[in-house]
């Protein structure tokens, strides 16, 4: 059974072997979620690996200053999001290659979208997600892109399942409207 956030942070701040143990616990519990979050935007495992390393180094260096005003996951999510966007922006400038991701795949036989490619729709979805408030964005990413059950998201964000369903519903509606406008559907 894993430790709760408060105990992990307490352990981390004790220093020495306790710090390492707490950090290992953070990576074991939240690493896969952060990986999936980054990988949804980054093009490859190699890029995701580099970004995740940077994220975790920042976590190690700054966890002492975490004020626990949000859940630990929300704090990690923000670091991962900022690091991913900054990293990809730098990479884009350096290589000149458009690194917008293909987060979606078009289902076979969908003639309504045959004039578009997956990358174009994914790019629009990425832009649509960017317009959402943070909570809705988190819920949408965890529910739709990472396909986590509400029970798990509820633990990560410390929010009731009812509240999560409402957030997801609003997020999905906003994205749908955005995409329909952009795609003239």
């Amino acid at each position, binding site marked *: 059974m894993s*430790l709760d956030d408060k105990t992990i942070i307490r*352990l981390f701040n004790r220093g020495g072997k306790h710090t390492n143990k707490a950090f*290992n616990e953070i*990576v074991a519990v939240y690493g896969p979620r952060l990986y999936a979050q980054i990988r*949804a935007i980054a093009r490859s495992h190699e890029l995701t690996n580099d970004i995740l390393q940077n994220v975790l180094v920042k976590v190690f260096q700054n966890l002492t200053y975490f004020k626990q005003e949000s859940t630990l996951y929300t704090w990690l999510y923000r670091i991962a999001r900022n690091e991913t966007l900054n990293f990809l922006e730098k990479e884009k400038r350096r290589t000149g290659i458009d690194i917008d991701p293909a*987060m979606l795949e078009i289902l076979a036989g969908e003639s309504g979208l045959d004039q578009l490619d997956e990358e174009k729709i994914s790019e629009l979805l990425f832009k649509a997600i960017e317009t959402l408030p943070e909570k809705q964005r988190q819920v949408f990413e965890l529910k739709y892109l990472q396909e986590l059950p509400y029970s798990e998201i509820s633990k990560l964000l410390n929010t009731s399942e009812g509240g999560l369903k409402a957030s997801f519903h609003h997020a999905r509606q906003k994205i749908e409207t955005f995409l329909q406008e952009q795609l003239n559907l």
Partner: protein
Amino acid sequence: MENPNNIFDQVNPRKVDIPDADYFAKMASSISASQNAAPKVIPLYKKPLFWVSSVAAAVALIFVFNIEASTEKAYNVQLAMNDVSAKEILSYVDENINEFELSEIAEIIPKEKMDALTISQPASKAVEVELSFDNISDDEIIDYLLDEGFDLEDLN
């Protein structure tokens, strides 16, 4: 009726293969090792606070010993020390002095002065000891268990 143009009915999120637990364990170990090897960065804004509190503590000690030296009477020291409870002294040391060795403190204070430094608790401030777990917080229990070397995960 469902919206025939609903984009979510026509696309699926791309599946992401998440590496196994070993990948994350190795990454955690390598970052811990590199961070522990790196010199600790202490924010500059914290340094003045440390020095100011250290100087304040030193000035307070000099002041207390000057009173004793000028009057040549040990009871003045007793009086000054008795104004401050042992609990307050301990909490001050706990909050403001990060690193100290009892042996170093003992070296600074001569034996004869140590004899004069008798700290007595006023009767009105007698500490009431209650043997009840209600008075012990979860944090104190966790601290105790960690100090004793217990693994919190085993106890969960």
